[in-house]
């Protein structure tokens, strides 16, 4: 009989016996399902943040910041912005204007819809050319754009869901000044949906700020970045650092995503360890319960390796459905689920990549949980096992 046929027949025999060991076998299935569900849910938060940050969508955009301080109150004067606009590599729009937009972000306090407290949200003042630089995913869902010079603003979808008084037509008071909400926008679940947006100069004037905080530019092509960066950093009149928007977003979110990944893998790892102990128990008792049967097969001339493989297959057969159940649970409960964290709201993402990770995790649990029992099944002294009950 060929080796493969041996494996097949022994495995079929094992699996046919599974229902009679349902209780013990269920332990592995449930255990793996719990690990995978918890781990994917935790990692799904990080995946949600990364998806929402999106910086990677725009390789042709760069951001100019003051060097030195990391959080700034604002340090670009209109003159600075004009100088930046002269740097090489910047794309021009149809009208020939350089695509450079100064930004003035201020933190404002808004009434939270839940709990009645207040939370900090960011109020972004965007340059005149800002809307031309928005990605294709940005669109107004209601109302119209703000007009420069007037106290008008548009609100992101996530901000609207989190805070009171932000419906189109509402008036919201920010530092004693009433602003009219004239529009609402969506940007494919991006983090900017958490903010309010208006005209940069209007924001500066309203908040008595002397200078812009950062300048975002669109380059003619992503390859022009180095040229643009060198021109600015070598300019002695500017004390700036230049980053690709993607790198900047990644750097800003690194502490958060790093922490989330650490928690996800740490908890997933520790839980997996516990489940491995349980899986070992299940498989050891499965092998012990079949001592006679295994010994009889070996006595009949079945290959030891075929028996070992069949034990491993049974271990996987318990772990993989567990992983699928866990992934399905995480996906049903949490994919697309909105979370508020660190002042941001975004949707959790249980991505196909994460589900694959869950399957790999389960396969490792199945492998480790089945290996030692498989070895025991092979090294069982045949004569002893046949004699004892």
């Amino acid at each position, binding site marked *: 009989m060929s080796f493969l046929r041996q494996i097949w027949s022994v495995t079929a025999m094992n699996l046919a016996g599974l229902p009679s060991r349902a209780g013990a076998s269920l332990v592995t299935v449930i255990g793996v399902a719990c690990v995978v569900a918890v781990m994917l849910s935790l990692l799904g938060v990080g995946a949600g943040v990364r998806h929402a940050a999106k910086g990677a969508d725009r390789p042709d955009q760069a951001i100019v910041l003051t060097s*030195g*301080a990391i959080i700034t*109150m604002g340090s670009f004067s209109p003159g600075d912005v004009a100088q930046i606009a002269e740097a090489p590599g910047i794309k021009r729009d149809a009208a020939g204007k350089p695509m450079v937009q100064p930004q003035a972000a201020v933190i404002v306090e808004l009434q939270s819809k839940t709990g009645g407290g207040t939370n900090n949200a960011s109020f972004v003042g965007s340059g005149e050319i800002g809307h031309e630089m928005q990605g294709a995913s940005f669109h107004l869902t209601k109302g119209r754009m703000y007009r420069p010079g007037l106290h008008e603003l548009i609100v992101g979808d996530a901000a609207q869901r989190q805070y009171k008084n932000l419906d189109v037509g509402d008036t919201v008071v920010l530092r004693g000044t009433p602003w009219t909400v004239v529009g609402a926008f969506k940007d494919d679940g991006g983090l900017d949906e958490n903010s309010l947006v208006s005209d940069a100069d209007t924001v500066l004037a309203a908040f008595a700020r002397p200078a812009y905080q950062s300048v975002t530019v669109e380059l003619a092509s992503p390859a022009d970045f180095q040229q643009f960066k060198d021109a600015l950093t070598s300019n002695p009149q500017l004390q700036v650092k230049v980053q690709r928007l993607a790198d900047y977003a990644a750097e800003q979110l690194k502490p958060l995503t790093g922490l989330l990944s650490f928690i996800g893998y740490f908890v997933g790892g520790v*839980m997996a360890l516990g489940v491995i102990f349980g899986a070992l128990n299940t498989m050891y008792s499965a092998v012990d319960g079949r001592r006679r049967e295994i010994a009889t097969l070996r006595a009949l001339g079945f290959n030891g390796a075929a028996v070992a493989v069949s034990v491993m297959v049974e271990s996987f057969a318990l772990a993989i459905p567990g992983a699928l159940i866990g992934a399905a649970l995480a996906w049903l409960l949490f994919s697309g689920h909105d979370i508020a964290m660190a002042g941001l709201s975004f949707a959790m993402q249980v991505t196909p990549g994460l589900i694959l990770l869950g399957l790999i995790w389960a396969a490792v649990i199945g492998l480790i949980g089945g290996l030692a029992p498989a070895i025991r099944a092979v090294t069982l002294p045949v004569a002893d096992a046949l004699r004892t009950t």
Partner: protein
Amino acid sequence: MKFLHLVWVGVWRKPGRALLTLASVINAFLLFGLLQGFVSGMNGAVADTHADVLVTASRVSQLEPLPISQLPTIRATPGVRAATPVIIFHGAFRTQAAVNVRGFAVDPVSFDATIPDETIPAADVAALEHTRNGVVLPARLAALFRLKVGDAMPLKSLLWVNRDGQAWPQQVVGVYQSNAHDTLFGAALLANFDYVDQGRTQSNGTASLYMVRVADPSAASQVASRIDAQFANSPNETKTESERQLAADSIKQIGDIGFVVSAITGAVFFALLFSVGAMMMQSVRERTPELAVLKTLGFTDSAVLTLIVAESLVMCLFAAAIGLGLAAMLFPLIRVGIGFNVHAAPVLLVGLLLAVGLALVSGLPPAIRGMRLSIVDALAGR
């Protein structure tokens, strides 16, 4: 107690299986201890704040500066005992890698009168007065950076650029032990207010916030509204909250950690319940003839039930004690890593109660099976 030997032998009937089960229970309680320790540390940080200290910040945002001219008005507010201006400094110190440290520039003279924090010695605060570019460090930071009094500590601020160049040349003038009260404003480095304010390129003559100490903690909220009322409708409106409220808010901002931890713990114990329950069930099934013999010898049904539940209890409590013990040994790491003091006793107590619950729920079904066992059938091998 005389049955303990019987119980213990039952637990170790199959040493391999017992070890694996113990390991999975230890593992679960270690995770429980760490997660719950973290949550308790967080809640503890809120509870450890001073009841009589208020924080006055800009109504617009905590990063918005307030003019220092507000200080005399605040001090003159009825019910205020003392007030001190603070600049949020939050620095970065580079050893092998840049490490961010929380830091505040404080006015040495009024700070000591305002913050009743006995953990920062008055002498250290006073040293800031004599050495304008001095810095006072909590002991764990000093240990982390291997700094001692007299060493130079060039710092970058996350917020402020120094006129002279990029670093804020600071000199260590004090190291304080911060054990009991790791409040949000403790366990941070302290610098000289005037030195930072005069040296920075912008926002000179402002404070990030004022710390206010009230005469009567029970009147704190009235004093807070009184302070805010004085600046209402001015360009610099204020928002005054108790230190405790602020701490609670900043933790709430991180997200609903309590829920996440409960969900994880729930999943872990759900899986564990089946794991321990299946192991106990199997053990009872294997011992059917032995249990029948015990009954023959005169052990009553309830004695057999008790015996099996006791096995489950001994195993779960034994493993939980080890797991929680390991977690407790790691609690100091939570303190060093995150700055929270873990209140170990309640965590351990809840853990042990959980172990009892786990033992009862997973031990009862097999125990009832053992109790219902008929001697005649079991002895006949049916």
